[in-house]
């Protein structure tokens, strides 16, 4: 019994950590720019394909990290320059444009790498025995890394000058502009950073996912509903959202069925959108 409980707890932690990683980029882009980036999942996918590219180029696996940053960063910069920057104040238009982009990115990846499933070998294989149960070592490492990363991010957001500027821009773009903050550049930076986070999420989670051109939609939808529940725009909101959504899904899936977990999250999201929509837009 305690064995099962421990396993459930570990699975829960893993789900929350993975979801936080997946949703971070979407939260950044929506929170800072008010853009619902429907191509978020495709940036995750692009990050995962950095592994494929690395293998193709015959580089050592670790080179996937700089390659991912370069690949996703370039794509994000291009997208920001050509499309997103014209749509900063047009929420629905930006949603539609990024939706079109997501189709294009999917097709482009299909053109280059084909439709087949790609396996990304686990960088760290094996199971670590934690007393009662064993748990995949890679997952434990990822959980630890994500926890550390979010801690650093939180401190940075609260303390650093750029963090202050970002928060200024979030709460009052006009005033921020007036105080000499270059919001255009900051916006571009925010978009690229959000996409880089998505790409890194793809890179890190690729070994545990089915890597294929259509993998993005699932990542997008899961991230969406985590953000809906938690509230967009703040790291704290993101943390609450992924905890509730990840927890509910893992809990219902374990207790009842996967279907219950899936439907439970959707129903929870609807309830939140109805009763607490302002939880999402705290800075109206």
């Amino acid at each position, binding site marked *: 019994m305690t064995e099962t409980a421990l396993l*459930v707890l570990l699975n829960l932690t893993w789900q929350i950590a993975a979801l936080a990683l997946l949703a971070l980029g979407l939260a950044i882009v929506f929170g800072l720019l008010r853009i619902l980036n429907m191509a978020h999942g495709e940036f995750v996918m692009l990050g995962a394909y950095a592994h494929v590219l690395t293998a193709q180029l015959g580089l050592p696996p670790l080179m996937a990290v700089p390659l991912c940053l370069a690949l996703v960063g370039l794509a994000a910069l291009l997208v920001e320059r050509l499309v997103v920057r014209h749509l900063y104040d047009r929420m629905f238009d930006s949603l539609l444009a990024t939706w079109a982009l997501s189709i294009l990115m999917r097709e482009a990846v299909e053109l280059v790498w084909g439709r*087949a499933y790609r396996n990304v070998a686990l960088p760290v294989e094996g199971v670590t025995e934690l007393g009662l149960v064993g748990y995949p070592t890679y997952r434990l490492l990822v959980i630890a890394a994500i926890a550390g990363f979010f801690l650093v991010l939180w401190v940075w957001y609260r303390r650093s000058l750029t963090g202050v500027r970002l928060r200024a821009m979030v709460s009052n773009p006009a005033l921020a502009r007036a105080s000499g903050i270059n919001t255009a550049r900051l916006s571009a930076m925010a978009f690229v950073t959000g996409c880089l986070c998505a790409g890194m999420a793809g890179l890190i989670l690729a070994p*545990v996912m*089915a890597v294929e051109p259509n*993998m993005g939609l699932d990542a997008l939808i899961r991230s969406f509903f985590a953000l809906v529940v938690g509230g967009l725009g703040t790291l704290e909101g993101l943390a609450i959202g992924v905890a509730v959504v990840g927890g509910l899904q893992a809990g219902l899936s374990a207790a009842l069925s*996967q279907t219950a977990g*899936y439907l439970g999250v959707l129903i929870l999201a609807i309830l939140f959108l109805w009763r607490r929509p302002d939880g999402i837009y705290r800075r109206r």
Partner: protein
Amino acid sequence: MNRNCRTLGLASGFALMLALPAVAEVRIGVLVPDSGPAGLFGPSARNVAQLALEDINAAGGINGQPVRLIFADAGVPPAQAVQSVVRLWRGEGVHGFVGMHDSAVRAALVGQFRGQIPYIYTPVYEGGECAPGTWVTGETPAQQLAPVLPWLAENEGATQWYLIANDYNWGRGTSAAAREIIEDFGGAVVGEEFVPLGTSDFDASLQRIRGSGANAVLVSLVGGDSVAFNIGYGAFGLDDRALRLGTLIEENTLAGIGAAGSNRLYAAAGYFGNIETEAAQAFAARYHESFGADAAPLNTLGQSVYDGLLLMAALGNAAGSMDVAAIAEVADGTGISTPRGEVLLAGNHVAQNVYLADGTGGSFSVVASFDAVSAGVACE
């Protein structure tokens, strides 16, 4: 329905089609997924169709007339797929269809055809299609599982089964068929669950499997779901506790799962790219010769189009025409030799060989084969 064929004119470039070719030929519509979730099977399906075309025409075509293939994308939702198909049927005067697509599209097509044109459905499917004018060459759950489950029980001690399936017709059908067979040979189903299509996280399921005491798992998941499940299965080290059997784990899926996730992962199918029969070896060699070493890998879904086309030709030749009634007269007992082995029509379905392969290490090796297994579907 004749006036429906009057049809087709100016407005959208259909005028071209009015000029039906003067040369007598048999046109066969080949419906393959170029887009959508099954899109990755499009290239291999198109490739083998090319090989089938060469073989059929080299043998004199159908009733002495050369065969021409016309492709359509069937990876789209049924409404759109039906449009393309009806256009080939009514517009281009296609004489018969060979389709490799999902069951929803099949159901929609059967509703449109209503037995007026020969239609061969080729992929692995849940069984039960008995519409007139429709013949099915794909493996049914009963066909794959009936010989394989007892074999695994006997040779691998797989008696305590956990069934996990995607929650839709094929997944449910496969689980139901398995339950019957397992109970028949004295094994036990220790757990059964259905997960939504598109599930990417299987932690809860893996935990249930771990606690179920199963020593074998039947994986009736499709595509990405199957990949994600099997990767997680390997990562949790469950492969030591229970073997897995899949009836839709083909070369692409296995490549996605990778070596780390495929220990003791078995697959049952009517075809694998590396079956060690002479016919299969020759076919694979020719395939790679024609389309390159890095062509889309051969697999049971893609390859099924080859069988479908050969069967269509055999039926046309046996009946002496492409008339659906004439074909229905002679269909029962019509057989073909394909890379799968001998394929024999019985009822609307085929009896064919079933192969069991072990995917350990990330590539299949056939460990057992079962000859002329019945589809187990009784159509009246």
